[in-house]
């Protein structure tokens, strides 16, 4: 019996196996196809050019996916909470910017396609230095020291001109004429495709890393520090290596940033960018590999679209974050995975009605909340900026009590109604889970 089990350990690679590979990973292949096709869906056919906004947003998504996944190497896989991850992103960006300038000046030759790799190496180098200090600490001390390092590097970035360019940052030009494929990377669509290639490579590498001894022991150290020691591993060392590698990938993302925006400033290393990594990864879901990808896409969407419509998009992100921390610490991916046993047993239909009934009150709460926030914002920030509050073509006066009353009513009333529907969902959920457990227990 053992023999047949052992045969699964190593199968010869055949053509059939390659086909099986494709079949097994079809979600990834589909996602790649979508990513490749999207700019063409947003293409402006009348003017024969790509939507600048669309390509910029998609490029940002690619970078942030790599950044968030690299952060999850620490947070999700190794259980390390870092508040300074942007340091490796930004420093990778600075290194790349300097490299591009050096290539342009003729001091060094490297194809543009490989330039993000240098960003990665820069991130790796700094991660080794900072990681050596940081990973000797446990939990909260680790979080504190990463916060300190982040603030330290940010202050340096503002102060020192030689490497960081001071407040003005480092400008660069990606059209340096060195390319393996003869592209000049002037048009942003070309940069987008380069980003896709690097994103695919980064995702594949980080995914494979989870299947290596280091990746598994990082999980082990996260789950049970002592047990890991007693199978012969030094948990600080494991964390150190994991930290360094995550800095490598963050640096690659930073390199892509430098290529895309052609300027790197202190905000790429600052607390705001580190907070970004934390938000994307957590909201997406730290417990799965692909969770951060979902989080990155969502946050970039909010950033790109909602920020056009409202000053307060960060408030919405913050509220979403707190709601997730309190009610759904597994993130979006966690929420989806929770339904897996129910979907497998074919009982999803039972939850359809209760969920549908939450939609109405949920909408009211959302609209009420957004209304109140926007009113607030217009009263102070918007007024000073001379904007008027326009909703569906009608101008709303933030000073009159009417819209406030409506907003409050929607929020409070909708909230109470949502609470009741939430109770029903809970009851239906519990009932379904009971049934599943009973079915599993039956011989």
């Amino acid at each position, binding site marked *: 019996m053992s023999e047949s089990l052992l045969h699964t350990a190593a199968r010869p690679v055949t053509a059939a196996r390659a086909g099986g590979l494709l079949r097994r990973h079809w979600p990834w292949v589909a996602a790649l196809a979508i990513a490749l096709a999207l700019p063409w869906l947003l293409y402006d056919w009348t003017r024969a050019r790509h939507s600048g906004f669309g390509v910029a947003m998609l490029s940002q998504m690619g970078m942030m996916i790599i950044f968030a996944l690299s952060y999850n190497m620490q947070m999700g896989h190794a259980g390390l909470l870092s508040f300074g991850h942007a340091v490796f992103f930004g420093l990778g960006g600075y290194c790349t910017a300097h490299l591009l300038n050096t290539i342009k000046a003729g001091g060094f030759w490297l194809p543009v396609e490989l330039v993000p790799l240098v960003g990665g190496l820069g991130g790796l180098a700094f991660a080794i230095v900072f990681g050596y200090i940081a990973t000797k600490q446990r939990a909260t001390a680790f979080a504190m020291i990463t916060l300190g390092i982040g603030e330290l590097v940010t*202050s340096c970035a503002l102060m020192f001109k030689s490497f960081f360019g001071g407040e003005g940052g480092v400008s660069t030009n990606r059209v340096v004429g060195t390319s393996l494929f003869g592209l000049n990377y002037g048009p942003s669509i070309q940069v987008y495709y380069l980003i896709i290639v690097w994103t695919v490579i980064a995702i594949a590498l980080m995914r494979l890393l989870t299947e290596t001894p280091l990746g598994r022991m990082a999980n082990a150290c996260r789950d049970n520090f002592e047990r890991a020691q007693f199978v012969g591993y030094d948990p600080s060392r494991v964390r150190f290596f994991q930290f360094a590698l995550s800095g490598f990938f963050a640096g690659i993302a930073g390199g892509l940033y430098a290529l895309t925006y052609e300027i790197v400033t202190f905000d790429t290393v600052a607390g705001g960018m580190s907070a970004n990594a934390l938000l994307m990864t957590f909201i997406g879901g730290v417990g799965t590999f692909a969770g951060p990808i979902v989080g990155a896409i969502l946050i970039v969407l909010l950033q790109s679209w909602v920020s056009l419509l409202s000053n307060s998009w960060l408030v919405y992100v913050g509220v979403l974050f*707190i709601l997730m*921390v309190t009610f759904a610490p597994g993130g979006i991916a966690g929420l989806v995975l929770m339904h897996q046993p129910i979907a497998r047993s074919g009982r999803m239909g039972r939850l359809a009605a209760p969920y549908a009934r939450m939609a109405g009150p949920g909408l009211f709460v959302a609209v009420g909340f957004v209304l109140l926030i926007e009113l607030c914002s217009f009263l102070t920030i918007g007024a000073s900026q001379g904007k008027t509050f326009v909703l569906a073509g009608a101008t709303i006066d933030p000073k009159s009590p009417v819209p406030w009353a409506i907003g409050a009513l929607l929020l409070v009333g909708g909230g109470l109604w949502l609470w009741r529907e939430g109770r029903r969902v809970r009851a239906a959920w519990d009932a379904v889970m009971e049934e599943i457990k009973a079915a599993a227990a039956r011989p």
Partner: protein
Amino acid sequence: MEVLLVSLLNGLVYGMLLFMLASGLTLIFSMMGVLNFAHASVYMLGAYFAYDISRHVGFWPALVLAPVLCGAVGALIEMYGLRRVHRNGHIAELLFTFGLAFIIDKAVQMAWGLLPVAYRVPAVLDRPLFTIYGTNFHAYRGFMLLISALMFCAIWLMLTRTRLGLVIQAALTHPEMVGALGHNVPRVFTTVFAGGSALAGLAGVIGGNYLVTEPSMAFTMGPIVFVVVVFGGLGSLAGCFIASLIMGFVQTFAVVFDVSLANVLALVGIKVTEASWFGEVLTIPLPRIGALLPYVMLVLILLFKPRGLMGTRDT
């Protein structure tokens, strides 16, 4: 000499302000294991509440009301937020306070605008108190010292002379044991959290018009307070006090002494200019890198003495 004395006084004022902030944070951190990221946000709320209240009723009512409001906010946060998240672990609590800080920051921006507000020192205190070596010592700074000293005494008395204080002292170093002894730990936690928040609010009331009251004040003050707490060590208010004073002096003196590492090296005969290796780093004068110093301190203490100056426990 006069520069030294004046800086000493200023450093003392700033250090005491930091202690008002850091003491609440140390108490909360030591007892509940939660590093409250929102602590500096409550400080900011205290300043803004005081601004609004003093616009309508005056500074002196604000001095009493704003901290009370902040204490109430703290109690609400603990009872309805932290307690729920507690079961998801320490990291979840940390993330919760982090998200809270985020939201409070944005809420303040929305409620009061993006620009600094004109929260001013009350007229009666807006004069020099005495003159030292030709430099005026502002009366408001004396007032700040007075309030900080009074608050310090009040805390010390409360901790050593009341029953609640004894329970808090015990829970500072042995939180689980206190629960096992039958004390109403949740109520103690709420009280400490509310008290710490009230202290932060008070710091905001008196600090907000001394420094600038603007939406980024939490963001700038927050990390410094964390450094003080970590520097002083877990479980020790005395360590926190010493660390606050050290930080106050370091930040004040850094602005005063216009030296750079290059000057120091010159004393031993090594000549460094901007063009030499790491020239920029070595020739930068101390006042300009003042912002860096707290973080250098943080990294150093975590490297050499991770428990902090007088810490009694690991994190």
